[in-house]
């Protein structure tokens, strides 16, 4: 149990993991389910339990497309995609790679990159 970590994720994401009623709608609606080791409902559950290491070590968190289908469909307003995003952010910060020079950005951004991804990247890397 790692409560500090849990609180930080909850604070960063603004999501309400304790509201989850374990219906599995997020996983049912996830378009990239097959690629994941852990699935959206598990992300939420693991954060709620404070199960840090396994979740942060898992590549699953980077399989999330941040399509927000789970956020849209969740009947309890848990917002799993935001939780996952916060976990990703936490991983990146732990690695210390939380600085991105604005000059790096245009090269990395390709024309087809959705605006959402840009905003996500900025949130992730900007200090």
């Amino acid at each position, binding site marked *: 149990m790692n409560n500090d970590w849990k609180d930080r994720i909850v604070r960063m994401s603004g999501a309400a993991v304790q509201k989850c009623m374990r*219906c599995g*709608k997020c996983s*049912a*609606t*996830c378009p990239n*389910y097959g690629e994941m080791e852990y699935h959206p*409902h598990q992300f939420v559950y693991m954060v709620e339990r404070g199960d840090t290491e396994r979740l942060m070590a898992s590549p699953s968190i980077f399989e999330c497309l941040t399509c927000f289908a789970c956020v849209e*469909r969740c009947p309890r*307003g848990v917002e799993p995609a935001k939780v996952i995003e916060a976990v990703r952010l936490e991983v990146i910060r732990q690695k210390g790679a939380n600085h991105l020079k604005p000059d790096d950005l245009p090269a990395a951004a390709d024309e087809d990159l959705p605006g959402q991804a840009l905003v996500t990247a900025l949130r992730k890397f900007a200090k």
Partner: protein
Amino acid sequence: MQKLGVFVCHCGTNIAATVDVKAVAEALGREPSVVVSTDYPYMCSESGQNLIKDAIREHSLDGVVICSCSPRMHENTFRKAAAQAGLNPYMVEIANIREQCSWIHKDREEATEKAIVLGRAAIAKVLLNTPLTAGESPVTKRALVIGGGIAGIQTALDIAEAGFPVDIVEKEPTIGGKMAQLDKTFPTLDCAACILTPKMVDCAQNENIRILSFSEVEEVTGFVGNFTAKIRRKARYVDETKCTGCGLCTEKCPVKKVPNEFNLGMDNRRAVYIPFAQAVPKVARIDPDWCNMLKNGKCGLCSKVCTVGAIDYKQTDTVLEEHYGAIVAATGYEPIKVDRYGEYAYAQSKDVITSLEFERLTNAAGPTSGTLLRPSDGRHPHTIVFIQCVGSRCTPEMGKTYCSKICCMYTAKHAMLTREKYPDTDVYVFYIDVRTPGKNFDEFYRRAAEEYGVHYIKGAVGKVMPRADGTLDVQASDLIMNEQLHINADLVVLAAAIEPSKTARRLATMLTASMDTNDFFTEAHPKLRPVESPTAGIFLSGVCQGPKDIPETVSQASACAAKVIGLLSKNKLTGNPCVAHSDEWMCNGCSNCASVCPYGAITYLDKDFRMPDRSTKTRRVASVNPAVCQGCGACTVACPSGAMDLYGFSNSQIMAEVDAICK
């Protein structure tokens, strides 16, 4: 100098755990006028009440303050005790130190201090109390039941059995409600029509029951024992007294493409129709939106074939005014609209249906005569997916926050019946939890899974996608296998949440009955007075109070009837003596009070007054009818001269409380 007694209740540890009751009794004992101040573990108990009575007699007390639970709980208990000891019951005041003190504070010192202040406020108030005597009002021995579903039917039958006349007002052309649309009922699988229609016939035949079908309550005035209701009897263009229900007109009517509400639009009816074969009253109704004669005056076929001359194209709405002693709300429910959940493709595919539609599809009187066929192509479905909790247990933004209670069981029933009738069908039920509290309920659900081979899958359906070949791709999660599934289904059934009837809100306003945030009627006490509304004389029956199944509805309906019978069997009701009264010397006859009074309780009299100079002057002064006044106090504030005041909550009393609190 008045003599007061203060009694502090421990309520076991409910109060004593956070409030130092001894200190409260001691502190209040030092207040002027208090001659006796004591504490006791349970003031409401027999011995506690005796303690109060003895103190009243021994010290010949003029007033009593009881520091205990909410006055909404035990005010009457203590008033009765005081009356038995010879003290006017309205010389009792309660300081609420449980709900509004001990239960909401954790700090003992803080809570004790607050309890003392609340006690002081009550003392300040009781010093200004005046002895009051309650007036009496007669009881109209007739009940009104609003809603003719199983709840309303059962309540009406029970009241009528006790010998009181009852009117059932039903907005549809027939009574029967939702239960009439059901096929079988869980957990015994008896046919809904077989057990409901005899009751409907009983209603029609009972001489104490008058069925006002196709009618709506428009206005309710009055108070417990003396309500007056205006009931709009909507025009059905068929004379109810003449129509024999032979159905000839419904066969001859040329307008054949009217969606049939009774079958939820899954087949058609005529413009003149009888809702279903066992309708009560079995009287036809002409639908003015479709009838050619009513729309453009061309047809009149039904009137030609009617052998008794019951068709009346000129019929208009009439308004019936009737007096009642008690009113029962039994307005029932509606399934929610499921179109908003786009992921289930209800609006895109005919083969995604609600459970109530499924019920009609399996009913022998339904659009398919009881054969389960896909609405799109009329073929037999081989794979059926049931989805639970559609719109239930959500955030308020996503749907209903409550559990609709009946879905788990009716889905088990649907799944079981499907497997029994069509063993070649695969049935999947996606559930979050299976909730089966109730007699023989869990056994029933287990039978569906164990004996009938229904596949129960813990998980949710993410989306339903209609495919080119007419089947439905159901994408779902299986939380136990931890995998995502795709099921190729022929039919998807949505267990839609239920919500109170849309008419209930308007009715609640009319009845001044309170509702919760979901538009369910609130009961006077959630545990101890579950069938009464907080408004005296208004009773609750069935789902309008909260989701419930048929057995529960029937027992609540009978409980409700018992309460109504209890009320109607009284000849007189003692009223509330806390009514407004005017100081005639101060009243200047401005009429402000009369214009704000919602009950019309204030009239003006021309009265002769003897003036200080011994002359006589006729002045116009307000006079309150205590039987009609309900004691809201609106007039007391509207009165510019301060002549109007309220017994029990007078200006001086409330200000004394304010002073005591702010000290």
